[in-house]
């Protein structure tokens, strides 16, 4: 079975908030210096889903990422987790791509990469939270998509997915090839092993350009974006403190309860 996982590097969600800067005029996020990008956690779980399938049966897992200078680091990380091959898609022409053009680029690369049975993506990238790429990749390739998986089994030409719904999960089956997007309920992604890291360090990672994957350049990059950022602002955090007092400890507690009630907190 050939499994392809699409991964994306994002700003580290754990980085200190003061480092997060935007250019409101250009409506762009300014990349902070010195803080390496990380793989979007949902994508890491998509890799985990692929590796669980590979644990149980003969399978080859290929990771694909579209990105800049540091994209190789993301690929190295998943190779160290146990992924077999990694491919970086990098081209000036891709800059400013939205979900739609990103999905187009990915689907071109997937077709070039060879035969595929299952394509896994994270449910959404943990930076912009758009959650569209997986579905559009399926559309581009003309295959079914199942979103929000918490468990993925693929055997004998079908994929069986436990799909998260608000009050539990439903089981969905689709014929392969298909796209499945993976949710956090799948569980923790595995850590790389020592041997995995060394093996990954040994692998060469091909970098494909727009031309390499036969992209129609009018469909990629900022110019081809179908979505538009109307405004970009930083949330304002306001902290207010108030000390509730009373004659005795018990009285202070009563006053606190009254205050909370007044503000409809309890």
């Amino acid at each position, binding site marked *: 079975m050939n499994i392809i996982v699409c991964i994306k590097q994002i700003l580290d969600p754990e980085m200190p908030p003061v480092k997060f800067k935007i250019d409101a005029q250009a409506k762009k996020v300014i990349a902070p210096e*010195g803080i390496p990008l990380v793989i979007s956690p949902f994508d890491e779980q998509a890799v985990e889903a692929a590796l669980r399938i590979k644990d149980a049966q003969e399978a080859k897992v290929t990771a694909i990422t579209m990105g800049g200078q540091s994209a190789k680091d993301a690929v190295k990380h998943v190779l160290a987790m146990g992924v077999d091959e990694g491919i970086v898609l990098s081209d000036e022409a891709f800059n400013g791509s939205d979900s739609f053009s990103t999905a187009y680029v990915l689907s071109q690369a997937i077709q070039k990469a060879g035969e595929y049975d299952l394509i896994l993506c994270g449910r959404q990238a943990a930076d912009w939270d758009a959650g569209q790429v997986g579905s559009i990749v399926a559309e581009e390739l003309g295959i079914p998509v199942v979103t929000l998986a918490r468990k993925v089994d693929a055997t004998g030409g079908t994929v069986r997915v436990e799909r998260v719904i608000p009050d539990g999960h439903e089981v969905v089956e689709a014929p392969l090839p298909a796209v499945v997007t993976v949710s956090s309920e799948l569980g923790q992604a595995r850590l*790389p*092993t020592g041997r995995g*890291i*060394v*093996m990954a360090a*040994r692998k060469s990672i091909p970098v494909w350009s727009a031309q390499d994957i036969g992209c129609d350049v009018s469909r990629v990059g900022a110019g081809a974006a179908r979505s538009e950022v109307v405004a970009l602002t930083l949330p304002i955090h306001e902290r207010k403190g108030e000390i509730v007092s009373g004659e005795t400890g018990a009285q202070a507690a009563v006053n606190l309860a009254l205050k909370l009630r007044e503000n409809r907190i309890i």
Partner: protein
Amino acid sequence: MSDKFDAIVVGAGPAGCATACKLARAGLEVLVVERGKFPGAKNMTGGVIYGPVLDSLFPGAPGDIPVERAIGRHVICLLSDRSSVSLDFNMAGSGDRNGYTVLRSRFDRWLANKVEEAGGIVAAGLRADDLLWQGQRVVGITAGGDEFRADAVIAADGVNSTMATKAGLRVNLSPENVNQGVKEVIGLPREAIEERFGLTSDSGAAIHFLGFCTRGVHGGGFLYTNKESLSLGVVVQLKALMESNLKSVDLLESFKEHPTVREYIRGGTTVEYSAHLVPAGGLRMVPRLFTDGLLVAGDAAALVLATGRALEGINFAVASGIAAAETVLKAKERNDFSKESLSVYEKLLADSFVLQDLKTFREAPRFLENQRLYQTYPELACKLAEEVFRVDGKPKKKLWQLARQEMKGRVSIWQLLRDGLSARSSL
């Protein structure tokens, strides 16, 4: 995959990368393991690489080395709490340069890339946990739960070297032979830097401070110019710091508030903060440098020269790394990685500046224990300068009279003479 390598290098700092680069270029199969997410991720240094040490590995240096600025101006600056006296050696305009400033996260990454280009394998995000032994001989390492074997292991894992410690080559660090450094990288526009420090577009300045920067604690301060930032920090002896009940962060804060320093960093924003230890014991602290199957290089072997002014560690790390590689290449020819065969390493170091400089300055650490260096003398210099330059309408005194006046209650003439003689013999 075969897990046997010709050599395993622990640590992708300057020492480890120099070793690996040289070995890989000679066609050996080399594995470098680095615990940081990427080489340089958590490393810090003041910032100056002194001398031509990189030239032998990278002819035409700096070439594409990501250096910040080439040093054209060296300043030694004595601080009292409100003024300063400097000795300023300026060759910035002459085109002559000595040393480069670097930022580690960029520099280490570049070095590691060179290792990979030469065919070495750099496994980042992997910590070496232990040595593998076969009898008395080191035959590899364990990392991430797996075993990796090699003919030779090079411990280039920095000041806290677990590898050298596990090999029983060194004792743990003690507070009197290790310094703690804290540093901020302060972002400033390129033009502001060049204007403030009187630099041309490619030249840089290195300023070393003594006195108020450490509030009298055994240590010093530094300020180096990068392309678009300044590296500002203090380095203090751990023992003196503990006895002073001060924290190095607080020292850095008050250093930044000093009127002389404040003007240099005005309008800048702190973009990075880091803290690190650095060996400071001189030759006495250098452990046994090798055993069967193992060599120790760089900070792991305490190969750092501290003379109270600058710290030279990167050049020592690179030079010892290269010597370690040469040793392994010779051992490989003989196919003998025993202690006896690896003893070439010590000879190579003894013939180079590495052990020679440490020998020349073997008394420096003892000399630097002198408390007067960090308070009395910087204050005296500032006071004296104040008196010399002040015109206040009263009759003037001769320099010597002024000096005697300011020394009163601070230091006796005999102490001054003794310190002078001791400086002569140790520095």
